[in-house]
């Protein structure tokens, strides 16, 4: 059974996402909406990962070299500055959140096949949260893009 591979992948991507939100919050502290919301959203990621830990305890974690990771979700690296930097950082976080989102979707497929009600509950809550996170990132980027790309200095 390879579900543990995906559960570990998911836990890892939530960790990366949380770290990245915190980095953006730190780097763009002069944008208070971005700052405070990113801290809140990071906490949401932590909560999902904590609940996921109980599932991993049941199914087990993936062996270290079970599936070679080719697309690495390493997070933001060094955050950028300025209006364009904000836009690019948010866009990178958007990709990380999308990765977590689609990973939850695959875990949901397995949970349905396994008739795992507890896991399905967790997936339902998580998908709802991440869907809002993705929409917020999109809303914020759409607002910032014209100014950053046309008028910013």
């Amino acid at each position, binding site marked *: 059974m390879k579900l543990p591979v995906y559960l570990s992948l998911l836990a890892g991507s939530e960790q990366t996402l949380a770290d990245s939100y915190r980095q953006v919050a730190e780097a763009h502290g*002069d*944008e*208070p*909406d971005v700052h*405070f*919301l990113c801290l*809140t*959203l990071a906490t949401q990621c932590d909560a999902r990962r904590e609940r996921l830990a109980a599932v991993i305890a049941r199914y087990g974690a993936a062996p270290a070299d079970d599936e070679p990771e080719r697309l690495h979700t390493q997070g933001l690296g060094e955050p950028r500055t*300025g*209006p364009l930097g904000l836009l690019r950082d948010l866009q990178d976080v958007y990709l990380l959140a999308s990765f977590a989102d689609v990973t939850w979707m695959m875990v949901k497929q397995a949970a349905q096949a396994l008739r795992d009600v507890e896991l399905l509950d967790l997936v339902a809550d998580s998908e709802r949260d991440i869907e*809002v*996170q993705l*929409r*917020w990132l*999109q*809303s914020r980027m*759409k*607002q910032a*893009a*014209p*100014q950053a790309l*046309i*008028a*910013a*200095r």
Partner: protein
Amino acid sequence: MTDEGTTVTTGAARGRVRDVWGHRTPFGRGDRWPDRADQLLAEGIAEEDVDRWVRSACALCSNGCGCDIAVKDGRMVGIRGRIDDAINHGRLGPKGLYASWQGMEHHDRLTTPLVRRDGELVPASWDEAMAMIVERSRALLDEVGPLSHGFYTSGQLFLEEYYALAVIGKAGIGTPHMDGNTRLCTATAASSLKETFGADGQPGCYEDIDECDALFLFGHNMAATQTVLWSRVLDRLDGPEPPVLVVVDPRETPVAKRAVVHLAVNPGTNLALMLALVHEVLANGWADDAYVTAHTLGLDALRREAEQWSPERAAEVCGVAASDIREAARIFGTSERVLSTVLQGFYQSSQATAASCQVNNLHLLRGMIGRPGAGILQMNGQPTAQNNRETGADGDLPGFRNWENPDHVAELARLWGVDPLVIPHWAPPTHAMQLFRYVEQGSIRFLWISATNPAVSLPQLSRIRDILAKPETFVVVQDLFLTETAELADVVLPAAGWGEKTGTFTNATRTVHLSEQAVEPPGEARADLDIFLDYARRMDFRRDDGRPLLEWAGPDDAYRAWQECSRGRPCDYTGISYDDLRRESGIQWPRREGETTSIRRLYADADFPTYPEYCETYGHDLATGADVGEQAFSAQRPDGRAFLKAAAYSGPHEPPDDGYPLRFTTGRSVYHFHTRTKTARSPELDAAAPSVWVELAEADAAARGLGDGDMVEVRSRRGRLVAPVRVTGIRPGTVFAPFHYGYWDAPESAEQRRPTAANELTITEWDPVSKQPVFKTAAVRVTRVEVER
């Protein structure tokens, strides 16, 4: 005071600084609120001396009291309330009586344009000043484009002026960077109505006070902010069958003193309290299940948020007794006619929209909307804030149109004769705080501020002063006086004000008044409308067919254009003409062409404006502000049903800690309006509240060895305030200061030596949905200081 400013109260209104609400005229439930004629004339002026009385409404709070201005020899010499006006039945409050006309006639009015030369503001002609503005505007449009321009307006202009500004901004220049100081006072009222009901529009009316059997004031110190409305409540409280009063406020306000239940919550914790009230209504079976099923969406999600909030848990977070929460919920859950009002205690605090939407939710759960006495008043702060929301000078699209709906944008494009692409609709309009951030970053380089004073009213003032003083930003300020903001401008334009120009404005209950010109403006001052039209002419803004974009000669043309823009929308003005407004004192919208009566209460039929093709917004997630979007909105098939929305409680973002152990909150004095530009020029009001103070609870004062009158420094991470202490019944752990006191009448560099503006301390933060800044919660410490008195 100079001669022209000398006025002393005569007659019955003389003591109204002390007797703020005037004498009582008690009445019973369902009776007509008795009339009371309030009048004030300048010293030495008798009623028979008055040349004429000119129709208007008071513009010193959002209540909208109908009045007449007394004119003698071309000067305003007094005021009287209109008996035939449904809003006030003849009454006026102290600000209206003393400051409305005295605030206008003053020796230090601006009478000529000023331009900055070699660092100094010096007098100039209108031609010189306007030429400078147009030159800079054109240059930046050529070099950068429309995104270089920002407009920051007011809650105190007239409808016609806002609409002119909206058309200039959206169809002339095409910038999304337009907002008003209404963002600070009324944005959450609009947002909460939009999120719940699909469009802006006050559901209730003031007659609901006459009819209710329970009255809930959520963060609303009505006794100070709308004194005439509070007179109406006092008259109910002192009459037969008085309503049960419940108040949420950290301070022991005059309102709280009359309450049966006073919930003195910790600042920043409103949402926790509200979810507990929802919890209790659901848990005790007080909801009207048939109404909820037929007319709402979202009960399951609301239940999920609320079920975690027992009264005990909320009590712990909010710092109030669980039994009081239970009692408040029981009153809401078992009364037959509940009226709720909401204001800055909710709007300017943490999670503002989410908390204010819970008020709507409570009413929807109980089916208490649109019936006499059963209603919602999401209040406004300023007299004309409503018009800013309607006309879109705050960035919204005019007529409560939806920027995400291409058909709505196309309607406006047809109306204005421009390409829809000109009208910014790719994202939500830029809110005030973001607008100032763009100025700070140098991407907005042309900022036009009309009739507002951000150098005192925005949060974190040292930052705002720096932004306005940036040499590369061209700042135009249009005002009555040389305000703290005007002193930082590149061009200052002298504006005509109330009584010196004609126009309409609309109060917090959709009631439109016409305010007619009574006297000539001083010197070369011009009506704001004329200034905007002059700018449009000089910029040569045109429709696609070559005609001028704004072919308006004066306010009546602008009003008729607005009527057309409002046609078919929730705020339909097509049946309200200037002539109608000269016949009836105050007319509520909507009144459509051909109709002779208005709709007093919205949503009596529970048919809410949530139809996707009609609604003003597809809504937002209340925790983050994320757009819901057209598809997700339509997929819910709302089609006339209201939304029960909620968010998880997250608490204030700057809680007290060891370094800053107290919670700071700001508010108002009954004697002042905004930054005192008019009220401090009334000798009576200035004498009643001449300078800033801070309020501390007895325990907090005692712990620091402080008593009444001791000078303290209140310090936050952003700045400091120096003021004498008043020990009051405020909840322990909380510090209060009024926000009115800037520096225009203070000694040089007072902002450094002895700062008095409460916003030196406030945090740069805003609600994720309404974008209203958070003025009501910040962490501070208080220490004694020795300063010369």
